[in-house]
């Protein structure tokens, strides 16, 4: 709806911009800007000033640059695109700093040239979740999708560009990605890479030319395969590319192999084949490197796994080989058990036999054999000789965890998680902004728990009694409408009523009520530096009391501490996971809670609610024990930004069905907690000494 107000005057605009850019400090010129904005209607003025303010929260120069250019851009771009332009600049600033961000603003034309890309292009993030599942559903090796400069595969990972926008419609662009993925899958599935790229084209004077001819011919062969295997997709592919007419019928037959393609290469060296739109690039170096490493690793792995299987089947694993290095001679050792792989009629399947008896291999062995068959066409006999004991060093074949997922640890650090953070001023998430690690807390003396219990001895007894009463137990409910048994008392009464001429009650049964207390609690403990001293003691004592009552109740619970310095060093301390029992180790970790650094709450809430959501429970509670506002080391987090991010994180948690609650000892809690948690979901305890006693009581109120 357009604003009905009058446009702002030049003076009003000037004042507004001067204040926004704090010109007495930044010395930025705003007169021209005000002049430019003046003729616009009020709605557009507000739109621009709104975005200028949002960008200003990121950086004043970006915002200034934006305001300079936005008036011209208004004619060329829709508001939606302008918003995307501004957000792109802010994201670039987050990732790369000021200069590249300013470039995004300044090169508005190149951004405009890309508007089609942005409007109708599909991004990798959009297609990845769908297509990675799609390719997993197609048979064969588990393939990964990754972002790359061009479209190609190294036979394990399929690379797609960041944005695909070659076609006019978004729908077609998605289809193109799908066709590319399916094509690369076909390359792997139908053995396009069973060629020694290093030597196969040596005989040709122009290797590049030969390779191109090979690729073009192989494309024809694979199209035949796709037409047979995925007819629906093939129809779409034909529509995308428009190429028709069958050449080289030999390549279209179901039993055409890559060898047929190689034989045809000399005939077509000088021909120009049309490039298919879905045709990926061929990257022989990447393929060879990846395949060589994999083939060696899988050979070792299969032999080790077969040896393990033999052991499980109770056969003698392998007679000791005199010289393990001479792998080839192993076959001659007196009648070792013989594995064999037979392809079954249905094509994709196979059967593993041991001494001619079929056996069912575990899934990992199945995957392994499938993968080997893709590379070799069949399983070479030397792969099927079980490895001797100690023949290989496990480090040769065990892939390291972090290899598989580069995003798991930023800067190759293990166990780091990346989380977005909500920027209120920008009204947008900052992508992958926080780096969080889970850390074990160094245990202290578990005797601490005993001392704490002793200190509150009287209260503990009282609490236990209260909570025992709360514990849901099996009990017989009388006078029910339905039940397992007739309630004779009720029946007699009802019959008497009936004789009396009154209405007969229908509550005549007894029902056995069964305990069904299905609650999971996540306790999130503030370990910031401000808790030093008696607050820390009070928090630890509260935890001890809570653990006591939670054990009485039998609710599932976990305890994590949180702290950190800056967005790159957010830390979560494991005190008790849902699986850990409440034993001496856990007690020692509770005793080991010490004040650390700062309180960046949003990221901790995001991480812990994710953990809590893996637990299958009717009610999921996230209780925060805190002593103050969210804050971080000389950071924007100390401002409203931190409160808004925390609020947003709590919204996200609530959306997934978690009930957040906050217990604080901050006397100013009422200033910000209702905003973050909602009016009823927090409580302030005025006296820290009462914390241990109150916490348990609050828990009781929360869960009944």
């Amino acid at each position, binding site marked *: 709806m357009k604003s009905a107000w009058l446009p702002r005057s030049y003076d009003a605009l000037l004042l507004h911009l001067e204040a926004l850019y704090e010109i007495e400090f930044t010395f930025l010129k705003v007169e021209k800007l005000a002049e430019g904005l003046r003729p616009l209607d009020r709605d557009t003025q507000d739109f621009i000033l709104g975005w200028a303010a949002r960008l200003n929260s990121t950086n004043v120069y970006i915002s200034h640059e934006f305001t300079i250019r936005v008036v011209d851009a208004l004619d060329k771009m829709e508001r939606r695109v302008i918003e995307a332009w501004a957000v792109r600049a802010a994201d670039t600033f987050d990732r790369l700093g000021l200069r590249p961000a300013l470039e995004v603003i300044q090169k508005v034309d190149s951004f405009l040239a890309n508007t089609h890309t942005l409007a109708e292009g599909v991004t990798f993030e959009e297609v990845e*979740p*769908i*297509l990675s*599942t*799609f390719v*997993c*559903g*197609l*048979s064969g090796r*588990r393939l990964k999708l990754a972002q790359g400069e061009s479209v190609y595969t190294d036979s394990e990972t399929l690379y797609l560009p960041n944005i695909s926008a070659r076609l006019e419609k978004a729908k077609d662009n998605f289809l193109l990605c*799908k066709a590319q993925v*399916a094509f690369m899958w076909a390359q792997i599935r139908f053995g396009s890479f069973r060629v020694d790229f290093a030597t196969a084209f040596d005989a040709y004077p122009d290797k590049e030319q030969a390779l191109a001819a090979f690729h073009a011919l192989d494309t024809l062969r694979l199209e035949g395969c796709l037409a047979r*295997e*995925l*007819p*629906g*997709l093939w129809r*779409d592919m034909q529509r995308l590319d428009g190429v028709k007419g069958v050449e080289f019928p030999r390549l279209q037959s179901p039993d055409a192999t890559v060898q047929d393609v190689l034989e045809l290469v000399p005939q077509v060296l000088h021909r120009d084949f049309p490039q298919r739109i879905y045709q990926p690039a061929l990257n022989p170096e990447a393929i060879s490197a990846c395949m060589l490493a994999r083939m060696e690793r899988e050979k070792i792995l299969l032999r080790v796994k077969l040896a393990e299987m033999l052991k499980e089947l109770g056969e003698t694993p392998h007679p000791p080989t005199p010289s393990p290095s001479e792998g080839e001679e192993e076959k001659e050792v007196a009648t070792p058990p013989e594995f064999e792989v037979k392809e079954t009629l*249905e094509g*994709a399947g196979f059967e593993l036999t041991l001494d001619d008896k079929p056996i069912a291999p575990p899934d990992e062995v199945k995957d392994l054999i499938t993968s080997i068959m893709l590379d070799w066409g069949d399983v070479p006999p030397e792969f099927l000789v079980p490895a001797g004991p100690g023949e290989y060093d496990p480090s040769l074949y065990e892939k390291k965890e972090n290899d598989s997922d580069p995003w798991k640890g930023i800067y190759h650090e293990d166990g780091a998680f990346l989380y977005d953070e909500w920027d209120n001023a920008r009204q947008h998430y900052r992508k992958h902004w926080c780096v969080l690690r889970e850390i074990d807390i160094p245990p202290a003396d578990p005797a601490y728990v005993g001392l704490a219990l002793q200190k509150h001895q009287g209260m503990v007894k009282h609490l236990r009694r209260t909570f025992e009463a709360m514990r849901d137990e099996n009990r017989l409910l009388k006078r029910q409408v339905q039940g*397992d*048994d*007739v309630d004779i008392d009720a*029946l007699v009464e009802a*019959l008497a009523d*009936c004789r009396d001429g009154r209405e007969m009650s229908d509550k*005549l049964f007894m029902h*056995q009520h*069964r305990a069904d207390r299905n609650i999971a609690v996540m306790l999130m403990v503030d370990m910031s530096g401000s808790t030093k001293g008696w607050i820390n003691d009070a928090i630890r004592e509260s935890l001890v009391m809570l653990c006591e009552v939670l054990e009485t109740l039998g609710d599932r619970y976990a305890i994590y501490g949180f702290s950190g310095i800056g967005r790159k060093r957010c830390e979560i301390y494991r005190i008790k996971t849902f699986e850990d029992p409440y034993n001496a180790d856990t007690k020692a970790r509770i005793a080991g809670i010490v004040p650390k650094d700062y309180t960046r709450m949003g990221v901790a809430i995001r991480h812990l609610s994710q953990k809590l959501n893996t637990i*299958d429970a009717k009610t999921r509670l996230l209780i925060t024990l805190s002593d103050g506002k969210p804050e971080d080391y000389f950071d924007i987090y100390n401002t409203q930004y931190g409160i808004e991010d925390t609020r947003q994180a709590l919204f996200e948690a609530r959306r997934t069905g978690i009930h957040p609650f906050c217990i604080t000892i901050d006397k100013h809690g009422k200033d910000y907690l209702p905003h973050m948690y909602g009016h009823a979901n927090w409580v302030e305890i005025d006296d820290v000494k009462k914390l241990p006693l109150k916490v348990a009581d609050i828990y009781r109120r929360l869960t009944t």
Partner: protein
Amino acid sequence: MENTARIHDPSTYTIEKQPYYVPVGNEVTLFEAAYSSHLPVLLKGPTGCGKTRFMEYMAWKIQRPMITVSCHDDLTTSDLVGRYLVKGGETVWVDGPLTRAVRSGGICYLDEIVEARKDTMVVIHPLADDRRIMPIEKLGQLLEAPESFCLAISYNPGYQSVLKELKQSTRQRFVAIEFNYPTHDLERQIIIHETGLDVVSTDKLLKLADMTRNLKGNGLEEGASTRLLVHAGKLIAKGVEPRAACQGAVALALTDDSDMIAAINELIGALF
């Protein structure tokens, strides 16, 4: 088409028409041997692979009435054994399905047994071992099962949840028969028989089934079962456009996750 339901007495009703069932392995002989030796039977396998159809087939084959109980977590012992009800100011005993099956010497089939609470299941223990008796405490009776009585239970080990496991003391009383999806040839035969679809479309359905089974553990709890394929096949045979039929009968039936549905739809789109 008949528009009113026919009423049968479960204790006497036997299946007249032979249910369509193609044996996958030796399950029929195994069941017959167990039945004649008075051993209870446990069927395990993924959903929709033919466990219930197999039971119908066996009930038809041995011509005994079959009483099926679909277990759920509110199932009480009384729901199985029986209870007193109030009728006209008097209490009347009403047999539960298990008792009825024992009295009539039929088959009692407890479907998805893990869904029932473990303490409820203990009631079948004396029936499931060589005693073959059923104490009915409230009546003060001890029911001895006749020769022809048979107890069968089924469950889907795919649910691998700690809460939903069968107690050892229960599972060790049974002869277990494992079911899995039939081989392609059999599955093709089944779909064609059940739906009347042509071979080409059936093969596409089979391919789709394989693709979804590849996704098991990668976002799907189970792949498409034979039952789902039959559903999809029936829709296609009725003239529904194949993509729409598979989306309704397979993709949406398998999962609620929107990305997963999109991916399965892409697979469907690639095939049909």
